[in-house]
Each structure stands twice: as structure tokens, then as C-alpha cells.
């Protein structure tokens, strides 16, 4: 997707009335280049949340508390055939590193923790506290 710099254009090519379409293809819900979903706020972060799938109970507290719509959700069926959300990751383009998700995470050993921005995910998971050391 185009960056704002690339989208900078001349007066004869700008959007009519500054009106922005959300979708390039509304039928297929294909997001337009004007959709902020394509804007990156990753450089706002000093620390990033790392998600540990192993410990997650899919309470979805992080999903509902995230102000930036960052949590990647997969729709799965539970044992009774009811659809439910499974957290599968974090969109790091949209995450500003506020840490609310970590704060609301209720598992005994948190399944979300903050790490310095440049920590590799694997490294972070290796450093995860255990029961005796949380």
C-alpha cells in the first residue's frame, strides 16, 4: 500500500471534496489505500506486547480492550459447535504499545507481556516467566 508520501499528489489528482472511500472494492470489502488499516503506527512503540498462544485461554479481554483493533482473530467452532474467537496474534503495524492488553490479561501467568521493541519474538517467548518465577 502507498505511503502518505507516495500518495502526495497534485491539485488536479486529489480526492474530490477530500472525501475518502473506505473500500477500493466495496463488494469484496477490499480496503482502499486511504484506509488507515494501511497506515503504520509501529514507530510509536518503545515496548511491544508479545503474545504467548500456549498460555492463552481466549477470554478475549485483550481484543475488547485494544483501542487500536490490533488483535488478530480466527473464528473457530467450540465443542458445542458454537462459533468463537481465537486470538492468533497481534498486528504490529497497528499496535502502539500501550500495554492495556497486558494489563487486562487474566491468566495466572500472563499470556501477553511487554518486551523492548527490538526483542525477537522467539527470544521473548524463551524468557517467559514460569509458575515459580512469574
Amino acid at each position, binding site marked *: 500500500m502507498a505511503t502518505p508520501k507516495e500518495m502526495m499528489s497534485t491539485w*488536479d489528482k486529489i480526492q474530490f471534496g*477530500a*472525501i*475518502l472511500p473506505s*473500500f477500493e472494492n*466495496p463488494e469484496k470489502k477490499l480496503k482502499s489505500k486511504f484506509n488507515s488499516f494501511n497506515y503504520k503506527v509501529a514507530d510509536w512503540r518503545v515496548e511491544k506486547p508479545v503474545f504467548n498462544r500456549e498460555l492463552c485461554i481466549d477470554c478475549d479481554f485483550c481484543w475488547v480492550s485494544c483501542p487500536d483493533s490490533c488483535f488478530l482473530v480466527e473464528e473457530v467452532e467450540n465443542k458445542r459447535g458454537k462459533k468463537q474467537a481465537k486470538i492468533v496474534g497481534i498486528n504490529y503495524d497497528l499496535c502502539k504499545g500501550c500495554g492495556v492488553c497486558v494489563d487486562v490479561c487474566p491468566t495466572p501467568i500472563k499470556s501477553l507481556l511487554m518486551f523492548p521493541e527490538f526483542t525477537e519474538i522467539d527470544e521473548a517467548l524463551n524468557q517467559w516467566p514460569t509458575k515459580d518465577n512469574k
Partner: protein
Amino acid sequence: MAEKYQLKSKEVWDGNMAASHALRQAQVDVVAAYPITPSTPIVQNYAQFLADGYIDGEFVMVESEHSAMSACVGAAAAGGRVATATSSQGYALMVEVLYQASGMRLPIVMTVVNRALASPLNIHGDHGDLYLGRDAGWIHLIANNPQEAYDITLCAFKIAEDQRVRLPVTTNQDGFLVSHTAQVVEPLQDEDAYKFIGEYKSLNPMLDTKNPQTYGAQTEEEWHFEFKATQHKALMESTSVIDEVFAAYEKLTGRRYSRVETYKLEDAEIALVLMGSAYETAMVAVDKAREEGIKVGLLMPRTFRPFPYNEVAEKLKNIKAIAALDRSAPMGAMGALFNEVSGALLANGQSAIMTNYIYGLGGRDTTAEHILEVIKETDKNKEAKKRVTDLQGFINLRGPKLSFN
């Protein structure tokens, strides 16, 4: 389906009634309005049409003019035909939203019944409100009598909604002198009027919720200038559409409108430039002056915005002395018409002896005698080949002569 209104080929309407019928015939989808003298009857008439089954659009009686124009913006962005009416203080309260409407390129039509701006409070006609909205990015059309108020309002919809324009339009008429003065008006039948304007053509409607649009984004120094420039371009280039619409209207009704109206200007040596009901008074004065051998003509920009610079200069190219008559307190400068006309002439390498007269503030009467006086003064300048009268004078102001040079 709304009832058809039985209209005679000739009706006796005041300017407000004429505008009300034009709104009704345009089958406006949403009218959001707030009453204010002297445009109140438009809102009342419209409410009565609704009560009698002649309207099937929505009529939203809001709690202020600010909300009136805001609701108009919301309605127009939603995707349909929108109109309102106001005057003076109400117009002043709307000003913030006028800029929003034009910036979002929303084709709203507003009848402005021109009235003075307080303080001191005054309910009568002058062009203070029209001048206030000058830079708001709207097309401003001028009507001098009830027939014109009717005709110009119908044209306004067609101009505003044209996909090449998509700008809001005001149609202006003088408070009381036009709005409350009943004259013979020849209306179109409902179906002919609607056919002339045509169905509303939508562009990026919010109500097409399958294809959502964001209206009213923020643009800072990186983008704002480009938007304002394109908006200005649309306004400048609306002239060709205005010409087309006026030509189509002439074909339908035989009544001819131009972006620049003139009266006996062809062989004139001096000219008066003015807008509004006083233009008709000035016609009487011109006829009298011509009886006395003064070759004088009149010019009026029918479109105050976009201001017809080149056409004005062209029409005035043989004129030796010009008096521009402004019906608005100039407050620290020459009147707007004086400035625009002077600029138009200079830009085209022309010159004439220019003077400015302020008249009719707060509904002060301006008679043919007063204007004849102006014609004679202007003629003196022509004879002397230089300005021998005051640069800026005041017509029918009580007390010692007030002038600026």
C-alpha cells in the same frame, strides 16, 4: 406522492412566496431551516405546503441557523436535494458551516433574504449578509424582484447539482423590498419546473452504506492548499454551467438571464454598477437622465460569485466614468463592487473614473431622484475627464455631507 399545486399562469406573489414555490417544485428531499425576519415566510409557506400535502420531503425545524446549515450538510452528504433559507444574523450564525458545505462540495441551495447586520439591530434590507458570505465558496446569485427570485431559485438547483460544479448556491433577494412586495409572477407548472431541474444525481452519498465514504477529513499544510485551489477552480469554472442553465431556462420560459445584466449600456458614456432591487429604481433614473441628454447605462453582476471580471470589463470598455453603488457598510475600505469593478478594469488594461456610493443601509429608501443625483455627479467626472466628485459618498444620509477621498 405530493399533491400537484394548482397554479395560474400569473400569480401575485412576493419574493418569499416565489422562493417557497420554487423550493416546493424542486421536490427538495430535506429542508432544514430556522425562521428569521425577513425570510420567515419562506419557512412558514413551506410548512403550510407540507401541512396541505404538497410536499413529501422532510422538513426539519431546527433550533438555530447553525444547526439548520449543519443539518443541511448532513442531509446533502447523505445524498439528496437540500435547501434552506435565512437572513442577516441567521446567516452570520451559519457562516462557519457555509465553508464546510462548500469545502465538502455539497450542492445546497439557500435563499438569502438580504438584511442588515446588527449592531444596531435592524430587520430591513441591505447586502451586509451577502457580503459576509462572499469568500465562503458559494455561488451567489442575485434576484431583483419576485419573478427573478422564482426563476433564479429554480436555476440554482440545476447549477449547484451539476456534476461539473457541485457547489452550494445562494439566491439573494432584498429584504422587504422584494421579499414582502407582491408582484405578478409567471410560474411554471409543477411538472415543467421539476423536469427543468431534473432528478437529483448523487455523488459519494453517505447513505450508500455499502460503499462508505468519509466526509470532513482533516488536511493540514500538506494538502489543504490543493483542496482550496480546486474548490476555487470549480467556482471559477461554474460560469459555463451557469450560462448553459440560463440558456435552457430562456428556452423554456422566454425569460433571459445573464451573468452580467445591463440596461442601456450599449451607447453609454457613463455607467452605474449595482445589484438588487435598486437596480430597477436605477432604470427609472437612467430613463430620466437620458431625457436630459446624459448617456448613462447600468450594469449588474447577476453572479456576485463567481464575479464575472472579464465580462464586466468587456461591457464597460467604452465607459468613461463609473459609479459603483454598494448596499453594505464598507467599514474601512471602498465597497466591494467598487473594488471588484476597478480590479476587473485594471486587469484588462482599461481605466475609467471610479467613484463609490454607499446607499440603502438598513432599508434606507433610495429613490430614482437619489440615483439621478449620482448619475449627474458621475457625468461631471466624465465631462471634467477626471474625478471632481468625492471618491466615496453616502446617498440619503441625514446630516452634513459625509464623504471620503
